[in-house]
C-alpha cells in the first residue's frame, strides 16, 4: 500500500480513498506507531524541536535566575511578548476543539481523519499558552496564590477580575480538552494493545486502554459521554477566547475598550487555528503518506473555513476603524492614527497584508489544491495572527492618554528565545505524539468506511 503513487483528484467527494477495509485502515494507521521507521522528515523536525526546547529551558532558567527585567516590557508597555504569545497560542488551540466538538455536533463527517490530530494540537498549544502567564509572574513559585484555597492569610483571589476568569477558563479548557482527547483515544489504545508485538509497548498501551474490550454496552455509554463532551466543549471554547478578550476589553485603554472584542477574538482564534492545522497537516500527510485518509476534500474544507473566519476577522478590523471614527473620542481617533502612521505602522500594514490580503487568494482553486501555495498562505496567516495581537497590545499601550507617559517597546533576545522556544516545545510534543499514538482516530475511520455505512438494522436503515 505504501509504495503506490497517490492519485489525487481535487473534485473527489471521498473521505477515504476507495478500496479500504476495516483491516487495512487499522493496519495503515497503527503501523505508523508500531512498525514503520519514522521518515526522515520526522527525524529532522524532531531534532529541530528538541534544540528549540533546550533554548526554551535556558531562557526560562535565566528568567527565573535574573527576573522579568531580561525582557523588553516596561512601563508603559507592561504587557508584551508574554501576553501576545499567550493569546496567539490559545487561539491556535481553538481550531482543535472546533474540529472535534462543533463539527461533530454538526455531523460533518469530514472531521473524522483530522480530529485526533487537531485535538492534540489544542492540548499542546494550550500547554505553550499556559506557560506564559506563569513565567511572566515576578515570583512564579507563588502561582498557587491564583487558586481559591484556604489560605492562612484569610484572603481570596479577586473573583471580579478578568485575569482571575482567565485562570478558570484556561485551566478548565486544558482539562476538558485533555479528557476529550483521552476518551477519544481509549478504543485506539486498545487496538494498539492488541497489535503491539513488543511486550513492554503492549503493557503500556494496555494500562492506558484500561481494559477496553469494545463491548456494545460500553460503546452505548461511550457515545453518549462523547457527544455530551462535545456539547460541553462547544460553549467552553467560545467562552475561553471571550474571557481572554475581556482581559483587554474590560480595561479602559483606547483600542481595547470595545464591545466587538469577544466575537472578533473567537473568529481570529479559529482562523489562526485552522492555519496551524493546515501548516502541520500538509507536510505530515505527505511524509507519512496519509493522502488516503486526509484527502484533498479535507484540505479544501479547511481552506474554506479559514477564508470564512478570515473575512470575519477583517470585519473586525473594519469595525475598529469605524468605532474610532464614530466615537468622536480624541483618544480613540489618535490610537487609530497612531496605529496606521505611528512608529509601529509597519506592524499594522504587515498585519493587513497577512490577514486581509493573503487569505483572499483562497478564493482561487489552485491555492486550495496546490499544497505549496496553500502552505504559503497558512504561513502568512500564522504570522498575521501573531501581528494582530502585537498591534492590539503594543500600539494601544505605548501611547495612551498622557503624552508625558508615552514610550517605546523593544523586545530583547530573551523575548524571542522564549517565543521560539515554545514553538519548539509545541513541535516536540506534536512529533512525539505522532510517533507514539495514532494520529488519526482508527475507530472513527472504521465508521465511515462503505462496509460500515452499508449495515442495516431491523427497520431497514439508520
Amino acid at each position, binding site marked *: 500500500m505504501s509504495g503506490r503513487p497517490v492519485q489525487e483528484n481535487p473534485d473527489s467527494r471521498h473521505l477515504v480513498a476507495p478500496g479500504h*477495509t*476495516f*483491516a487495512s485502515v*487499522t493496519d495503515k494507521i497503527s503501523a505508523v506507531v508500531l512498525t514503520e521507521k519514522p521518515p526522515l522528515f520526522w527525524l529532522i523536525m524532531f531534532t529541530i524541536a528538541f534544540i528549540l526546547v533546550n533554548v526554551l529551558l535556558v531562557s526560562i532558567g535565566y528568567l527565573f535566575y535574573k527576573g522579568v527585567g531580561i525582557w523588553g516590557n516596561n512601563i508603559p508597555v507592561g504587557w508584551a511578548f508574554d501576553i501576545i504569545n499567550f493569546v496567539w497560542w490559545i487561539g491556535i488551540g481553538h481550531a482543535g476543539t472546533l474540529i472535534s466538538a462543533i463539527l461533530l455536533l454538526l455531523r460533518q463527517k469530514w472531521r473524522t481523519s483530522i480530529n485526533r490530530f487537531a485535538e492534540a494540537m489544542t492540548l499542546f498549544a494550550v500547554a505553550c499558552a499556559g506557560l506564559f502567564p506563569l513565567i511572566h509572574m515576578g515570583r512564579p513559585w507563588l502561582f498557587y496564590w491564583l487558586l*481559591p484555597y484556604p489560605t492562612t492569610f*484569610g484572603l*481570596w483571589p479577586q*473573583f*471580579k477580575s*478578568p485575569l*482571575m*476568569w482567565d485562570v*478558570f*477558563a484556561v485551566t*478548565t479548557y486544558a*482539562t*476538558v480538552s485533555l*479528557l476529550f482527547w*483521552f*476518551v477519544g483515544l481509549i*478504543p485506539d489504545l*486498545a*487496538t494498539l494493545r*492488541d497489535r503491539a508485538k513488543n511486550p513492554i509497548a503492549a503493557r503500556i498501551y*494496555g*494500562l492506558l486502554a*484500561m*481494559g*477496553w*474490550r*469494545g*463491548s*456494545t*454496552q*460500553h*460503546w*452505548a*455509554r*461511550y*457515545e*453518549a*459521554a462523547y457527544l*455530551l*463532551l462535545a456539547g*460541553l*466543549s462547544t460553549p*467552553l471554547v467560545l*467562552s475561553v477566547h471571550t474571557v481572554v478578550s475581556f482581559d483587554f476589553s474590560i480595561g479602559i485603554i483606547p483600542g481595547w475598550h470595545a464591545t466587538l472584542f469577544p466575537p472578533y477574538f473567537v473568529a481570529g482564534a479559529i482562523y489562526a487555528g485552522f492555519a496551524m492545522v493546515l501548516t502541520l497537516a500538509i507536510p505530515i500527510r505527505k511524509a507519512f503518506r496519509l493522502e488516503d485518509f486526509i484527502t484533498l476534500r479535507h484540505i479544501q474544507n479547511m481552506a474554506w473555513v479559514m477564508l470564512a473566519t478570515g473575512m470575519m476577522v477583517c470585519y473586525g478590523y473594519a469595525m475598529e476603524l469605524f468605532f474610532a471614527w464614530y466615537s468622536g473620542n480624541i483618544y480613540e481617533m489618535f490610537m487609530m492614527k497612531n496605529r496606521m502612521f505611528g512608529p509601529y505602522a509597519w506592524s499594522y500594514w504587515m498585519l493587513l497584508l497577512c490577514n486581509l490580503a493573503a487569505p483572499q487568494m483562497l478564493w482561487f482553486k489552485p491555492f486550495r489544491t496546490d499544497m505549496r501555495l496553500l502552505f504559503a498562505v497558512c504561513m502568512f496567516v500564522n504570522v498575521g495572527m501573531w501581528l494582530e495581537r502585537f498591534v492590539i497590545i503594543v500600539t494601544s499601550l505605548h501611547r495612551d492618554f498622557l503624552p508625558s507617559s508615552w514610550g517605546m517597546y523593544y523586545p530583547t533576545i530573551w523575548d524571542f528565545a522564549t517565543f521560539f522556544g515554545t514553538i519548539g516545545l509545541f513541535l516536540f510534543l506534536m512529533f512525539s505524539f505522532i510517533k507514539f499514538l495514532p494520529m488519526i482516530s482508527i*475507530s*472513527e475511520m*472504521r*465508521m465511515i468506511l462503505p*462496509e*460500515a455505512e*452499508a*449495515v*442495516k*438494522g*431491523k427497520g431497514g436503515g*439508520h
Partner: protein
Amino acid sequence: MNRPPIYGLLAQFDSPQALVDAAYKVHEAGFHKVDAYTPYPMEEVIEALHQHDSKVAWLVFLGGCAGALTGYGMQVFAAVIDYPMNVAGKPTHSWPMNIPITFELTILLAAFAAVFGMLALNGLPMPYHPLFNVPEFKRATQDGFFLCIEARDARFDREGTARFLQGLKPTEVHEVAH
C-alpha cells in the same frame, strides 16, 4: 457463589451485517445476559440488544448543577460572607461578575461527570476480563465482530446455546474460560 464452569460462549462473525442479524435473533430468543463486541460503535447492534442507557446524561446534568452551585457559592461566600469589602459603596454581591467562573466550573464538573461516570458505569479500568482468554478476541478491537452469551443467563445451556449460536452463521464459536 455458585459459579458456572465457563464464562460464556463467544460467536465470531466476519461482517458487521452478520452480527446485526444475529443480535436481533439472540434477543428474540430471550437471552438477556448478552453483549456484543465491535471495533467501532454500532448503533444497529445497540438497538438490537436494547443497550441504550441514559444514565450518563443524568450524571452530566448533576455534575453541571454541582459545578454551578460550587462556582457561584464560592464567590458569594468569599465576597459577601467571609471577606466583605466596601469598594466605593459598590454592592458586595455583584452577580454579573460571578458568571464567568460559575460557567467554567459548570462545564468542568459536567465534563468530569461525563468521563468518570462513563468509565464507572462501564466498570473500567478492568485489566482482566475472561474474554481476553480467547486469542481470537484480539480482533474485536481491529476488524472482528463478536457476540457473547454469558453462562449466568437463565436460558444458558452449554450444548444447546452452542448449537443455537452455530445456527446464526458465525465463522466460529469459542468457549470462554473464566
